């Protein structure tokens, strides 16, 4: 990174709350339905309809607020944010300006083993807009209002982030909090979590903030890092060439890895916010906040510590296992059923995660169930299945419908049980390769590998290589 320039980043994260119905109407919120089949009269903004707030959205927002140790407002009001765009049929978005439901809070973020506190300015409730498709019909924009009115929690951070990497860590932390709280599925590919980044640079030591640009349309963790880094470099280059940074909104293009100016600069947006007369204020009592606080589920930070204590695994392992709610849950089920939780952590974070990553899948879509994993680990613990054997089974069961037991039988991985059988095989091999054995005894130690290979071939990889090595070196010297 550049030694002279410090980057200053703030993120606005939009989180879709996983309610059954929309924030102000009782239309369903399901993703991927036929166009406009989830848009009610309220979502269409027809005259004479009135919004009525979904109580679940308030609870979810308070849950988030409690999880980040934030002030919860005793009163929440909704405001109209006015602008014209076809996917917003009312001509205004119902949002919050004054008295957001969640006030100042904080989130701890770790990068390169260094933990930093990132301030949260606010989090407020608002409705999502619909979707416009511009290329579907010649000369027209096609509007799908299914998403219109979906509840969003907009989480605004302070400009406390100092690198793209830190921004990603922050985003991941938000992701883990909302999924552990079960207030959103956090699926970035489906737009359940979206991110805008405010980026500026200044000389190290400067107090004053530079002019910032707002990056829109960043839809994956990977793109967040790329888009921000790209924007930082663009700004450094401009300033070093004597040009000033214009305050503007820029769109990130993932295909070209570049940002480009988005809004016309004729006049700045003027949203003319005012309290929405259709909605009366929300009063939030201390009792309500207390009740929600007490019912909060265990959060990742607490879980990381508990896993280290209860399962005696390392901080690194515990953090990785708690990177998602599903993974953490999967581990707990498995670890509770086997004798060594450490072994469970090793296999889940190792071979299972590797094959999931290879297939671009999440643990919840894993073809190897927690029951399968328990089965495999128990066999390893008993000594009836070797490490390489288990590895092979994980790979095979991925593309097979057969049960773990059937696969083990089919592959002959169950045949080798104990030391005695391996010794028998070793004896046989030494007998059949007496020439090589003699050369080995005379000092040609390289031949050890040859014998290991023969044994592994004979046992079809089902023997524990460590055990084979030990037994072989003993036997070959006899």
């Amino acid at each position, binding site marked *: 990174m550049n030694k002279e320039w410090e980057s200053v980043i703030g993120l606005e994260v939009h989180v879709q709350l996983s309610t*059954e119905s929309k924030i102000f109407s009782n239309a*369903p919120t399901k993703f991927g339905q036929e*166009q*406009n089949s989830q848009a009610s009269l309220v979502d269409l903004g027809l005259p004479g309809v009135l919004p009525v707030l*979904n109580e679940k959205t308030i609870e979810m927002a308070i849950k988030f607020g409690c999880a980040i140790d934030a002030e919860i407002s005793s009163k929440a009001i909704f405001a109209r944010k006015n602008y014209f*765009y076809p996917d917003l049929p009312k001509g205004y978005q119902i949002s919050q300006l004054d008295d957001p439901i969640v006030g100042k809070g904080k989130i701890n973020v770790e990068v390169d083993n260094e933990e930093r506190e990132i301030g949260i300015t606010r989090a407020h409730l608002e409705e999502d807009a619909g979707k416009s498709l*511009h290329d579907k019909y010649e000369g027209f924009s096609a509007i799908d209002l299914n998403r219109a009115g979906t509840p969003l929690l907009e989480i605004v951070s302070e400009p406390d982030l100092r690198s793209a990497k830190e921004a990603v860590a922050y985003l991941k932390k938000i992701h883990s909090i909302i999924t552990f709280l079960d207030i959103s599925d956090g699926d970035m590919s489906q737009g359940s979590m979206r991110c805008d980044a405010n980026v500026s640079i200044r000389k190290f030591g400067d107090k004053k903030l530079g002019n910032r640009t707002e990056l829109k349309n960043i839809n994956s963790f990977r793109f967040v890092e790329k888009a921000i880094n790209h924007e930082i470099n663009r700004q450094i280059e401009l300033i070093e060439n004597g040009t000033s940074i214009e305050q503007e909104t820029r769109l990130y293009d993932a295909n070209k890895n570049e940002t480009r100016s988005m809004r016309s600069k004729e006049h700045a947006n003027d949203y003319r916010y005012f309290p929405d007369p259709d909605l*009366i204020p*929300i009063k939030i009592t201390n009792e309500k906040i207390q009740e929600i606080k007490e019912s909060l589920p265990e959060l990742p930070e607490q879980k990381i510590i508990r896993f280290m204590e209860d399962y005696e695994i390392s901080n690194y392992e515990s953090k990785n296992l708690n990177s998602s709610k599903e993974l953490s849950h999967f581990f707990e089920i498995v670890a509770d059923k086997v004798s060594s939780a450490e072994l469970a952590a090793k296999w889940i974070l190792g071979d299972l995660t590797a094959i999931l990553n290879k297939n671009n899948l999440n643990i919840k879509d894993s073809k190897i169930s927690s029951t399968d994993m328990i089965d495999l680990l128990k066999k390893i613990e008993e000594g009836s299945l070797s490490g390489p054997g288990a590895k092979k089974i994980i790979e095979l069961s991925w593309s097979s419908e057969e049960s773990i037991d059937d696969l083990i039988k089919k592959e002959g991985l169950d045949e080798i049980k104990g030391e005695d059988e391996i010794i028998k095989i070793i004896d046989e091999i030494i007998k059949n390769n007496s020439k090589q054995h003699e050369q080995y005894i005379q000092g040609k130690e390289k031949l050890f590998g040859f014998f290991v290979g023969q044994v592994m071939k004979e046992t079809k990889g089902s023997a524990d290589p460590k055990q084979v090595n030990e037994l072989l070196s003993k036997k070959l010297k006899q």
Partner: protein
Amino acid sequence: MKISEEVLNNISSLSKIKIDEDIKPKLIEDLESILLMVEKMNKIDTSKIEPMSHPLDEANNLREDIAMHEIKRDNYQKSAPQTEDGFYLTPKVIE
């Protein structure tokens, strides 16, 4: 407070309402008289009064999170100027 033609044009553009040249002077006059009234109200000391966001002294008109599954799309689309395959069509708008 005076309203310039520039301000009027900005309001017109923000609200997407076209204003004919010949009614502009009258409109400016009307808007200025409205602002005059607001200025009068602004002179009242309200520093000890908590602002209201709604004239009704009520709160928490909430709905249970239950989805209804009767969206009569075809019915709703009857009043739209143009639809295609379930989409609403508008003149092409790209920001």
